[in-house]
């Protein structure tokens, strides 16, 4: 199967190509949808096969597809090396899990979109599926890429598709702006990511994930000083923070809700935004050698989680609530990764993908039913009109609130447990977050489905068609069951996911052997696999020794579990009380703490103030240079802190006046010189004779006097 792993991204790509080249012009909606969905379905089947395969043998398989950048000699810290990149895919448990999530949820969302987007014009419909398929292709490339560069192709590719899909309704200025904002903020992160990649090459002499992990495993853990590995990891994290919307680069995600709802579900909840978490998991070995950076990641994650959750409490746009919720949950994942619980992070990634996709698609159904209305305050009482949606969304909300035995409970609990062992302060933050999560989630449910107000929609709301509800139901089932693969030992489970992911995450040393495709395994393969298993076990033991936290006492684990369930329930109850039983309470609270309310409503004013700050950040690195530049050109030191636009405009003017001015001044002086010379040409013979004599006397004078 591994040989055909390239078919995974290939099918969606082909679907995108067909729909893009021909569909926009010629295909009917049905054909377009069929092509898109079938391509995803095939990929899903392949991913399942791959997952099964990966489960069978806990080893990483690299598939060489073709040459890309041929080796170019370079001197690195490792001495002589060669910079090169091949089209290499890597299929290992982590990649398999990610591929399953992408294709699985991707397929469902495709299916959902066939109905959701039906009101679009035909060409636009095909364009949508073209982009969506392309996104899946790039996302699969991202998670399957065997080295940083291939991964980066997917990384940037999903950014592009995100840009295109956010701005899908490009005639809306806000949508186009949001798309651009997303891309550029991501680019800022990519700056760090790219530099991180280069630093990694410089340090390791290779960009292959396996090789990097192997090399990094031999470096000392940088506990005390902020060394080379830490720098690499920090830079990579900048990229991850951009993609996964963490402080300080999270501001694009709420705006990204301008895109169609399935896009929000797929890209901005389930898959693309988790790429940052994925990249930390993928380079777990590397990151584990930079504990200082891990600390930073944990802190950033926890703060992001809390901040986003608190903002979500007061948002009134249904999708924005979910967007802030996504940011918050991503923060939790980073927190997990930061405290060393990488498999917990990935576990939460998976469960979150299910329930958040479910919530988004549910909200899509609500919006669909409300004919495009997204304001929570104008909804209410939809329970009877949208029974399927209601039930599935409640399942999703319960999951995200951490109510057992739904998926979110297991994954979140694992994170809280691990965090508790590492750092109590972070645990407190995370716990508050989970309380707030339950609160805002059920606030959303209450606003949408309860209440006595008749919905202010022109037509009576109606349940979505089957193509939309079926994915909802499937996702709801998934939300219920997917958590079972991570039942902790405390509850008598096997924590299967952690075991499954271990080969991707544990410290490994690479042994590569080559195999020609289509030929039987060479002798010794089985032995090697067995050996690898054995070593994995040993690694795992070493891992446990390194992170003794995970061996928390049973009692503590139980207590924490109970506490977290309690927190979720409290949040739910509070939301119920505030928004269903006593709807006037929130208003009073808002009046009482108007300052806090305004702060939250305006997202801590970060968005307003941050617009300038982002701009400043964008050009922060350039500014110093540019100031020097100003000095160089006309000795003029510009004031500090002018906005970019003004800077750019002035730069333009300086170009016109300063640099050009020097050239024009040369021209001017030549013109003046010409004028002077011509003035001298009086036309009078005697003047000419005089000049001749003067020239002669000039010679003479210099000669006689200046010897």
């Amino acid at each position, binding site marked *: 199967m591994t040989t055909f792993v390239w078919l995974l991204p290939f099918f969606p790509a082909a679907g995108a190509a067909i729909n893009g080249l021909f569909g926009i012009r010629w295909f009917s909606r049905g054909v377009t949808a069929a092509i898109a969905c079938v391509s995803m379905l095939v990929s899903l089947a392949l991913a399942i096969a791959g997952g099964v395969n990966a489960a069978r043998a806990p080893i990483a398989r690299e598939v060489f597809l073709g040459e890309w950048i041929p080796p170019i000699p370079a001197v690195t810290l490792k001495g002589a090396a060669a910079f090169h990149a091949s089209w290499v895919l890597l299929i290992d448990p982590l990649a398999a899990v990610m591929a399953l999530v992408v294709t699985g949820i991707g397929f469902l969302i495709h299916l959902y979109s066939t109905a959701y987007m039906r009101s679009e014009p035909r060409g636009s419909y095909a364009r949508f599926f073209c982009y969506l398929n392309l996104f899946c292709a790039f996302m699969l490339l991202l998670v399957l890429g065997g080295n940083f560069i291939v991964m980066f192709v997917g990384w940037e590719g999903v950014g592009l598709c995100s840009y295109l899909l956010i701005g899908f309704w490009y005639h809306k200025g806000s949508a186009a702006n949001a798309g651009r904002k997303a891309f550029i903020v991501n680019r800022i992160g990519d700056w760090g990511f790219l530099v991180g990649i280069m630093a990694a090459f410089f340090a390791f002499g290779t960009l292959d994930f396996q090789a990097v992990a192997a090399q990094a495993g031999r470096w000392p853990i940088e506990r005390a000083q902020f060394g080379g590995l830490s720098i690499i990891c920090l830079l990579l994290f900048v990229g991850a923070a951009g993609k996964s919307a963490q402080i300080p680069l999270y501001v694009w995600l709420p705006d990204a809700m301008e895109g169609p709802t399935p896009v929000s579900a797929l890209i901005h909840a389930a898959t693309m935004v988790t790429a940052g978490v994925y990249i930390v998991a993928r380079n777990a070995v590397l990151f584990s050698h930079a504990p200082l950076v891990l600390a930073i990641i944990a802190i950033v994650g926890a703060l992001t989680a809390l901040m986003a959750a608190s903002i979500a409490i007061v948002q009134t746009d249904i999708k924005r609530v979910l967007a802030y919720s996504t940011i918050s949950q991503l923060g939790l994942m980073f927190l997990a990764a930061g405290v060393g619980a990488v498999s917990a992070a990935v576990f939460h990634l998976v469960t979150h993908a299910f329930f958040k996709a479910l919530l988004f698609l549910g909200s899509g159904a609500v919006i669909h039913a409300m004919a495009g209305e997204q304001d929570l305050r104008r909804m209410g009482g939809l329970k009877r009109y949208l029974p399927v949606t209601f039930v599935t969304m409640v399942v999703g909300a319960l999951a995200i609130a951490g109510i057992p035995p739904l998926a979110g409970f297991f994954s979140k609990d694992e994170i809280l447990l691990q965090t508790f062992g590492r750092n109590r302060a972070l645990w407190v933050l995370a716990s508050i977050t989970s309380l707030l999560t339950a609160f805002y989630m059920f606030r959303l449910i209450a606003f949408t489905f309860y209440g006595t107000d008749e919905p202010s929609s022109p037509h009576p709301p109606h349940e979505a068609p089957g193509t939309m509800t079926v994915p909802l139901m499937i996702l709801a089932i998934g939300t219920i069951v997917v958590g079972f693969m991570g039942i902790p030992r405390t509850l008598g489970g096997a924590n299967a996911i952690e075991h499954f992911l271990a080969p991707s995450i544990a410290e490994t040393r690479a042994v590569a052997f080559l195999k020609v495709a289509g030929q039987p395994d060479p002798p010794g393969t089985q032995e090697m696999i067995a050996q690898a298993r054995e070593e994995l076990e040993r690694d795992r033991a070493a891992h446990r020794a390194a992170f003794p936290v995970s061996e928390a006492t049973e009692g503590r684990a139980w207590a924490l579990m109970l506490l977290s369930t309690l927190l979720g329930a409290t949040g739910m109850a509070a939301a119920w009380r505030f928004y269903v039983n006593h709807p006037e309470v929130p208003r009073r609270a808002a009046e009482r703490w108007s300052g806090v309310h305004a702060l939250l409503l305006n997202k801590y004013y970060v968005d307003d103030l941050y617009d300038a700050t982002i701009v400043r950040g964008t050009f922060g690195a350039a500014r110093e240079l540019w100031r020097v530049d100003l000095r160089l050109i006309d000795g003029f030191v510009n004031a500090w802190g002018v906005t970019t636009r003004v800077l750019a405009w002035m730069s333009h003017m300086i170009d016109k006046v300063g640099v050009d001015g020097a050239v024009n001044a040369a021209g001017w002086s030549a013109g003046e010189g010409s004028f002077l*010379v011509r003035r001298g040409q009086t036309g009078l013979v005697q003047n000419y004779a005089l000049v001749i004599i003067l020239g*002669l006397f000039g010679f003479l004078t210099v000669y006689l006097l200046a*010897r």
Partner: protein
Amino acid sequence: MTAIGFSRGDLYYLLPELIVCTGALLLLLADVALSQQRQARAAWVAILSLGAAATLLAVMSASETTIARGTFAVDGFAIFFKLLFVMSAAVTVLLSHRYLTIEGGRPGEYYFLVLCATAGMMIMASGIDLIVLFIGLETMAVCFYILAGFLKPNRRSNEAAVKYFLLGAFSLALLLYGMSLLYGLTGSTALRAIATALASGSSGRLLAVAVMLLVAGLGFKIAAAPFHMWAPDVYEGAPTPITAFLSVGSKAAAFAMLLRIFFEGLPAFHLDGLGSVFGQPLGWASFFYVLSVLSMTIGNLAALTQTNVKRMLAYSSIAQAGYMLIGIVAGTPRGVSAALLYLVVYAFMQLGAFGVIVLMRREGVAGDELRDLAGLSSRQPAIGIAMLLFMLSLGGIPPTAGFMGKVWLFASAIEAGYFGLAVIAVLNSALSLYYYVRVVVYVWVRREEPGTPPIVLSRAMIVALAFAAAGTLALGVYPRILFELAQASAASLGRAEPMLGWLR
């Protein structure tokens, strides 16, 4: 050797000059003999005699000898220049033909003067004695005085003649004063004797003064700043073909004389021997350095804002003299050969450029203003291309001859270590493009004003312009022959010995 009078050899080697003179006399006769309608044939006489002279020169091109008791050298250098003069004269004649009909001058007289001037130049190129050089110079100069004022009713022509004459005579006096001092210091007028005398004795201030006077006198003739002031006025006022001839022939002849005097007569004082200034040894190269820089800068600056093409070209020719002086300053064989090469190149492009101006002279149109050139390319594309070539060549843009010439001049400066001069020269060269390109803009971009009379080509004009354009292009693309010729000619300077053999 001691016999007084001519030998056969003297006569043989003087034949080119004699033929040109004979042609001139024939033209005088024709002027009287031919009826008004057949006066046009005068041009044929001039062309034929120039052609004959050129043939003879080509035949004796391998000579390296002195005649007339060592006062007259027939060497590669002289023949190089003489061919240049004859060629320029021929082109001038071709250009003049229709111009004269429009202006109403008498062809016989005119061509007579052109040929006489040519003869004078030829003598200047060969003379290795101050007296001979002086005679040649005056022969040429007097003819040019008249030619400049040839359009008698034309006030501008008149004024040009007056200015040229007065200043020419004035500068001649300076030159002669310098020559007399040189004679007094060395006791000889023969250049090589001068060189010998100066090589043994010390120099002193008087020699420096003499050199300065020579520089001034010759600088006047080559129109180098600050002795250039006459040039724009005279060039503008004189009949256009004469301007062409003046700016090419007269300048080249003066350069020949300059090279003869300084490289044959004063080679030892090239870089030092004339005292010192600011602790630096002073030679005549220093004077030419100053002349070169001033000429380039002043010429280009003044040309920048001209609207009269003739005047612009006059200033440009001052700048061009500055470039050529670089070769003199360098003083190396490469420098001399570069100057020779550039003179040839310059002849082609300058004659061509003036040829186009001549062409623009029509009934009712003076043709020498920039705006008169507007739309030339759409009326006569071939002429437009030719003008483009001439302007590019003057500016030193490949693939034209001017590029090769300039490269070689700059190379000589660099080789001799004059980096500063080279930098000034290249910057000037870039500056000059501004006004050359302006001409191109008028020719190619601007639209003509409606109602201007058509541009009519004559056969003679076509030949002349085609020749100039072909030379400008060919010497730029494949300058090999010219390079070798110039190098050989430069090398022959000062090598000629009194002849042996039957021709004695």
